[in-house]
């Protein structure tokens, strides 16, 4: 018998059953019809499936849905305000396929930065550096964009962070 699980997705509660093999990505897209997160590679290599689970950015393709019973999931469709607007204004996309993952990842980046987390390009790891282009590029490196809209993506994240330019 398939296990039952309850998830909150973008504020709405869903109770469903699913095979233990189902990824969170497939559960969202195919069972619940929530198509904002995208399937790029299904192997953790592209970031298109990024969602926030209990406030942290994760890859929904490598997450087994059954492990997240009771979790609160936020997809790009559930994020509004300055961040998606900054992507629009900066032309932070072309075809748009990677964009929901980019937006969720950017939300994670802003939160991690607010917590004071360093990145590997941070000169002094005990410091919280400003989100300049090098920091943004490193922190967003888990999201590939086949259209190469990286310049706009960086700009969108920088604008949303309210950080100084380069």
């Amino acid at each position, binding site marked *: 018998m398939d296990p039952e699980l309850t998830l909150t997705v973008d504020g709405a509660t869903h109770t469903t059953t699913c095979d233990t*093999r189902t990824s969170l990505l497939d559960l969202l897209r195919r069972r619940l019809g929530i198509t904002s997160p995208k399937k790029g590679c299904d192997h953790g290599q592209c970031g298109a499936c990024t969602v926030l689970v209990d406030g942290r950015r994760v890859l929904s393709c490598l997450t*087994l849905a059954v492990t997240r019973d009771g979790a609160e999931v936020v997809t790009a469709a559930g994020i509004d305000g300055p961040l998606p607007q900054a992507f629009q204004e900066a032309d932070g996309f072309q075809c748009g396929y990677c964009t929901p993952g980019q937006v969720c990842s950017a939300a*994670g980046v802003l939160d991690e930065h607010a917590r004071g987390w360093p990145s590997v390009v941070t000169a002094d790891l005990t410091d919280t550096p400003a989100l300049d282009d090098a920091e943004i590029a490193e922190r967003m490196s888990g999201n590939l964009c086949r259209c190469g809209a990286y310049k706009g993506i960086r700009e969108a994240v920088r604008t949303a962070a309210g950080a100084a330019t380069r």
Partner: protein
Amino acid sequence: MRPFAYDRPDTAAAAVAAVADRPDAAFLGGGTNLVDHLRLGIADPGLLVDVTSLTSTEIVDIDGGLRIGAGVTNADLAADPRVRARLPVLAAALLSGASGQLRNMATTGGNPLQRTRCPYFQDPASACNKRVPGSGCAAIGGATRNHAILGASEHCIATHPSDMAVALAALDTQVRILGPDGGRTLAFTDLHRLPGDTPEQDTELAHGELITAIDVSYPRGRHAYRKVRDRASYAFALVSVAAVLDVVDGTVLDARIALGGVAHTPWRAVRAEDTLRGGPATEEAFAAAAEAELADARPQPGFDGGNAFKIPLARRTLTATLRQTTPRETA
């Protein structure tokens, strides 16, 4: 994918019993490696025992260091103020690995136990002694860019892909293990094994043995982690070096060095350490240490051009990393 059962017991002992009981059961950490393997069709457990909530997610102070619960994520570990200030080699190694999303999922127990990224291991259609003992090794003479230059055998030339494990191998690290017959502690440098004629066995852990925590001591000296890869981020290491050098008045009192991307294990650079200890912290000494460490390195030919480039690359990366740990006299 074969159907499997999923269990999330309340205690570590129950998880160990559940896995020990079934030869086809496996522990599930963050799942970033195991779930990929399920999908690739190279792992087909009948039971997954989720250990993320039953192993500790705390990092606690112990005498002279830290005890890191197996459930602590790579992201939380790298962000810990004690790790950033007193174990920067570990923080840097963690932050150089994978991506922000993956580090939020990957665990302290799962990271050192991730399996090789050898493309033939990951392809069920290829011969691979690690995946199917006795089937041969398609990597030998194949594409060997990511393969070993140290400690390889005629049965397997794979490398260990973890960055975190390279830092842990350089540090004084103990692995706390719970098995069906009770607990034991293993030096981290004894956890991984060379392939020999049993490459299917990555580590000294027996089936059903659970990593519950990892203890790390604070070393004296300056830290550096350097990773060389095919793109600037979100890529595995071709070669990496973790080093902690304790230099007083120009003399190396202690050296802790490990290499990544070069062997089946995170490679503790004992020869380089011995060469340096007690001597001067000079460019010549660093070059001599790197020379000594790579003296037995052997390249793998391959249709992609092979991996002979890794020997000078490892030598130079090692020298450069040692230089990074040494304060310059003049700016």
